Every structure is written in structure tokens, then in C-alpha cells.
């Protein structure tokens, strides 16, 4: 079994006090903070250099769409953590139900983003090259959307074929769901900051 080749996938490492997957996920998220931090930094720099262009009265992004998507991501985060909680009660069907809801929320977020925002903007001739605000907007929300797509792939895997692991090693599966959850909550946190920065300020 592959998990026997990797040490500390279930039990905590004596030095770090946590299983290796969790430490690895947190280190990955730390690098992600730097990635988005660079984008937020660029946003501030461009905003200072372009007074007026970034004003939300001028950009005219639809706040309600952003608000709906924020709520959807919050719901997805709750579903994700509840999926993990179900595993602690040895309830795999319950876990899969919440994973499925997380997936539904993620797909809904992307559909709203692409149809009601990106497509609408492209149809009206608004592209990243339109002005520095839209360069930031498409880059930051696009990268965030890519993270959502990544989350969909991983959650979809653990909802489908990956869930077989539960029958052979439930603790390992629970830990994998926890790591997936860490990633998903991080994606939620990024949006929590993107929403006011891009839509309200």
C-alpha cells in the first residue's frame, strides 16, 4: 500500500506534532499567501498610480453578483468542514453528501463568475487590456477561479474514486479530507479579501 511507504500520513510526526500531509499543506498555503500577496501589492501600486480608474463608482462591478458569490463560497466552506466532521462520526455517506454540496457551490461560483461577469464584460469589450483596474481584476479573480477549478478536481476525486481509501484506511482518508479542507478554506479567505477590494472600494 502506498500509504505505508510514506511515513506519518496518519500518526503525528514526533518533531512537528502533526501528520506530514498537514504540514505540507500549510507550507503550500504559505507560498500561496506570497503569490496572492504579490498581486495585492501590485494592485496597491497600480491604484496609487492611477487615481480614479480603480474607484468602484467608475469600475461599475456588480456588487450583488460579488455578494452572492461570497455567500456561496462561505456555504461551501461550511459544507467542507461538515464533511470532515461527518468522518469523525464514521459517516462516509454523510461526508460524501457534504462534499457534493461543496462541489455544487464551487461550480455555481464559477458559472456566475464566467457567465454573469467575464462573458458580460467581454461582450461589452472590456478586457484585461482595457485599463489597469481590469488588468488587476481579471488577473486576481482569474487566478482565484483557477484555484476553484483545482479544488473541484480534488474534491471530485475524494467524492468519487478517492473515497475507496476510507474502506481500507479511514484515518488516512479523514486526514486527506482535512488537507483538502485547509486548501478550500484558504480559497475562501482569498475571496473574503478580494470582494471588498475589487467590488466595494
Amino acid at each position, binding site marked *: 500500500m502506498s500509504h505505508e511507504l510514506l511515513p506519518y500520513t496518519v500518526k503525528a510526526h514526533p518533531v512537528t506534532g502533526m501528520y506530514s500531509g498537514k504540514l505540507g499543506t500549510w507550507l503550500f498555503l504559505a507560498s500561496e499567501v506570497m503569490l496572492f500577496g504579490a498581486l495585492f501589492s501590485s494592485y496597491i501600486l497600480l491604484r496609487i498610480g492611477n487615481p480614479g480608474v480603480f474607484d468602484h463608482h467608475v469600475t461599475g462591478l*456588480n456588487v450583488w453578483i460579488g*455578494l452572492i458569490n461570497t455567500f456561496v463560497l462561505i456555504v461551501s466552506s461550511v459544507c467542507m468542514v461538515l464533511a470532515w466532521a461527518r468522518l469523525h462520526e464514521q459517516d462516509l455517506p454523510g461526508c460524501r453528501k457534504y462534499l457534493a454540496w461543496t462541489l455544487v457551490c464551487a461550480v455555481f461560483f464559477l458559472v456566475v463568475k464566467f457567465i454573469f461577469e467575464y462573458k458580460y464584460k467581454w461582450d*461589452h469589450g472590456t478586457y484585461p487590456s482595457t485599463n489597469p483596474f481590469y488588468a488587476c481584476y481579471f488577473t486576481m479573480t482569474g487566478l482565484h477561479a483557477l484555484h476553484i477549478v483545482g479544488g473541484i478536481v480534488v474534491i471530485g476525486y475524494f467524492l468519487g474514486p478517492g473515497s475507496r481509501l476510507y474502506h481500507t484506511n479511514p484515518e488516512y482518508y479523514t486526514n486527506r479530507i482535512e488537507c483538502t479542507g485547509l486548501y478550500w478554506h484558504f480559497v475562501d479567505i482569498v475571496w473574503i479579501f478580494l*470582494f*471588498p477590494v475589487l467590488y466595494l472600494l
Partner: protein
Amino acid sequence: MEAAHHVDVKAHVRKYMIVFAALTAGTILTVAASWLPVSFTGHVVIALLIALVKGTLVAAFFMHLVSERKALYSILILTVGFFFVLLALPSFMHGEMASHPQIHVAPGVAPPAHDDHGGGHGSAEHATDGAAEKGGS
């Protein structure tokens, strides 16, 4: 032992629901606060403070940071420190920006279209009247 474990999970779920309610309230509050008649700086401070509280709630409870090992805190404190250094970089370059104002809207590029389907924000509609028709990049 099993019963105690069950109670523990249920207590966690109750906590998640409280956090969910707080996040929803925070989101509504963020939008409501954007209509307050305060300065731009005031808007920035309010919006980022609410976002910070919401982000902290997600990290603390959904990501279980409240019950994590101290070794993890040192990694995260280092990350947050570098994150703020990144955010502070533009302020060091502010003077440079003033003397080299190349980063501006490209000449001949029209302002962007705004979403007028199903809402908007305050006076956005008026601010960009006519811009949508021009479009183009």
C-alpha cells in the same frame, strides 16, 4: 469514550454554525458599510477590518488554527510578516511612481463597460454612462 467523542463533534458543528452566521453577517455588514458617508480611508479601514475578522474566523475555526501546534504558528507568523512587507512595498515606491508616471490607462482606450444587469453600486450607473457604448480595447 464513544459518547464523549460524539458530544465533541456536535460541539464542533455548533461552533461551525455560529461561525457561518458570523461570516454571513460580516458579509452583509461589509456591503452596508460601503454606503456609509465616510472618507475613502474610512471605507478602506472598515472593509479591511471586517475582512480581517472574517478571515480570522475561517482560519481559527474552519482550519482549526485555534487548536494547532505552536510549530505551525511560527511558520504562519513568518508568512504573515512577509505578506505585510509585500503590501508595504508600494508605499516605498510611491515617490518613484510620481516621477515615472508610465503606468496609466493606455491612450485611446475607452473606460470599461459596467454591469447594469440586476444591480450595481450606488452611482456606478451614472459614473460610466456612455462608457459601455464606447467599449473596445
